[in-house]
């Protein structure tokens, strides 16, 4: 007997794992495979990448707001120093993009599992574990976001923790527990750091172990259909028994997994290498430079959704707390709600249309939110303004509602359509800015006409640009 065999035997006498290993490696899988079935493994890979890069980052970072000699909070300073060095910058980039990859891969994995109906009996529990993993991944992203302590980090966290405050009865208290103070302070960044590097990794590892363990325990859905009837009953655990037309998981399936990991890794490396993440100005609790807070792209749908909610307190509670909670709960309960036993896509019209509408809704909201960017003010005041001068401003600040679409019947796409006005009539009265609805709304003075200040939901148009528009109207609004 060779030495390695003897070692394995010695181990097995003490651990009795031979049967389990055999089951894990040599269970039959269908010969025709879809690489989409390995997305879960891609998620494991991205997590390992996050784990490694996270440990490296933790060797140079500390969640401290003590001011360094350059007058910056230490946490921010540490990021700056790290990013001044190419390898450090690359590691940060890997960790930064890893978060986005994680969200994307987990989401796609979930869609695939949903599409093939893999959550149905006897795999209900594994779907539920998957939903818990999804929540954990989002919590990772949310807590990690604050750590660089730049403007984006600070305000996204301010809004995120304020949302918790809308929970009935316990809201304020929960926000207090999360922040450790009224607003964001040293206490907050310390808490977020502990959650990010201690609580969540442990949670994720435990959930993932259970999630993967269950896959081996119950087998994959695709195998169910390929296996001859009664195979599972007759099968003796720990024996290799591959029915005709199927192949053992090792090395056929594992090869597919390795390829999936390779592709994922190459994509991650490429994105991290070519798109180094910026760091913004250090967090300024007074927001002196009028930064416009926006969440990272994976929470954009929520940000955009909140813009549509009416301003009553209870409407806010419903939108911010009730709807997201119910949505996660429904997702968790999918295997119990969907009683249709079929795995065949054609026989599951309700489930699949629900899935399609969810995807369209999420992608649409994300796109809308992403597009509602306000271009930072750079313009100088133009005294003898022409249509071309104001048109540029409209392009920059009004495009999403009044150029690509015509909200309120108003299109600012051309001179003619601008002069024609919208459903409230003309918006430009040549020579009279104070009587021009357009001038009134961008200056927030149209409340008496029941028109909200514009740009809706955005930072006001900078004073210089507003002055240019005013000059243009005053001079007769010429072409």
């Amino acid at each position, binding site marked *: 007997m060779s030495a390695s065999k003897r070692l394995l035997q010695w181990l097995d006498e003490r651990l009795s794992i031979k049967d389990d290993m055999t089951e894990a490696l040599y269970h039959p899988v269908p010969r025709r495979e879809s690489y989409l079935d390995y997305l879960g493994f891609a998620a494991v890979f991205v997590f390992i990448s996050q784990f490694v890069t996270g440990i490296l980052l933790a060797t140079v970072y500390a969640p401290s*707001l003590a001011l360094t000699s350059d007058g910056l909070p230490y946490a921010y300073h540490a990021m700056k120093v790290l990013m001044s060095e190419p390898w450090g910058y690359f590691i940060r980039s890997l960790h930064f993009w890893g978060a986005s990859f994680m969200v994307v891969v987990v989401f796609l994995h979930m869609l695939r599992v949903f599409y093939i109906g893999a959550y149905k009996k006897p795999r209900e529990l594994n779907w539920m574990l998957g939903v818990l993993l999804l929540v954990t991944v989002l919590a990772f992203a949310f807590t990690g976001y604050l750590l660089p302590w730049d403007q984006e980090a600070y*305000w996204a966290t*301010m*809004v995120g923790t*304020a*949302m918790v405050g809308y929970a009935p009865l316990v809201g304020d*208290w929960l*926000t*207090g*527990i999360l*922040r*450790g*103070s*009224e*607003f*964001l*302070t*040293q*206490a907050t960044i310390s*808490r977020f750091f502990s959650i990010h590097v201690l609580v969540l990794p442990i949670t994720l590892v435990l959930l993932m172990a259970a999630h993967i363990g269950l896959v081996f325990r119950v087998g994959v859905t695709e195998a169910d259909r390929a296996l001859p009837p009664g195979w599972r009953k007759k099968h003796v655990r720990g024996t290799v028994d591959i029915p005709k037309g199927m192949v053992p998981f090792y090395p056929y399936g594992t090869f597919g997994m390795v390829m999936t990991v390779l592709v994922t890794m190459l994509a991650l490396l490429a994105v991290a290498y070519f798109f180094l993440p910026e760091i913004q100005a250090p967090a*300024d*609790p*007074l*927001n002196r430079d*009028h930064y*416009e*807070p926006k969440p990272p792209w994976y929470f954009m749908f929520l940000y955009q959704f*909140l*813009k549509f*909610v*009416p*301003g*009553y*307190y209870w*409407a*806010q509670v419903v939108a911010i707390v009730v709807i997201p909670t119910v949505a996660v709960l429904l997702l968790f309960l999918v295997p119990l709600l969907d009683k249709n036993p079929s795995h065949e896509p054609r026989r599951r019209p309700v489930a699949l249309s629900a899935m399609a509408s969810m995807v369209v809704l999420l992608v649409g909201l994300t796109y809308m939110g992403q597009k509602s960017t306000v271009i930072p003010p750079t313009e100088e005041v133009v005294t003898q303004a022409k249509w071309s001068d104001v048109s540029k401003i409209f392009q920059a600040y009004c495009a999403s509602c009044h150029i690509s679409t015509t909200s309120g019947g108003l299109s600012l796409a051309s001179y003619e359509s601008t002069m024609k006005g919208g459903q409230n009539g003309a918006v430009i009265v040549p020579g009279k800015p104070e009587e021009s609805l357009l001038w009134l709304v961008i*200056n*927030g*003075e149209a*409340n008496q006409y029941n028109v*909200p*200040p514009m740009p*809706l*939901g*955005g*930072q*006001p148009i900078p004073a210089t640009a507003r002055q240019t528009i005013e000059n243009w109207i005053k001079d007769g609004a010429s072409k």
Partner: protein
Amino acid sequence: MAKDHSAAPPSGGDEKNPLADWLEGWTPQEVTRRKFMSVSMWTIGGLIALAYGGLGLKFLWPPSQSNVPLEEVGTSDEFKIGDPPVLKVTDNQGSEGGAWIVRLENEGLVAYDMHCTHLECPFTWVGNQFACPCHGSTFDIHGQVTHPPAPRPLRRRLVVEKDGKVLVGGIIS
């Protein structure tokens, strides 16, 4: 003779009523060695978990906001009726906070906390109103909402004038 530990504990009373069954279990003659050990195990385990849970909660409990010390932010003559509100820096437990201060005709000196009542973004004074960049809420000079989604008027902070100085404290409304 070896005692048979595997035998089911003697159950008292109506077997179909778990509560009665459970209560019966507490009468002295019914507490078997087996039941005693199982009940103590769960009780001790529960107490240990409770102790650590309580300890953690006590440690993380948010600090009280009621006694924010008054802070000097300027002088009385800086704020005149008719002037636009001014943003002043205040302390927020070691990091910065801020309040918009304005002197109103009927209300006197007023200080608004700088965070929007919707989701606590920082609003600014634009033209003739406070506007929030996050979801577009606006407020008039009295702090009343003029455009949603903000559900509540601006939060006011304690403001005191003393010997020509203006002092700002914690949130009062």
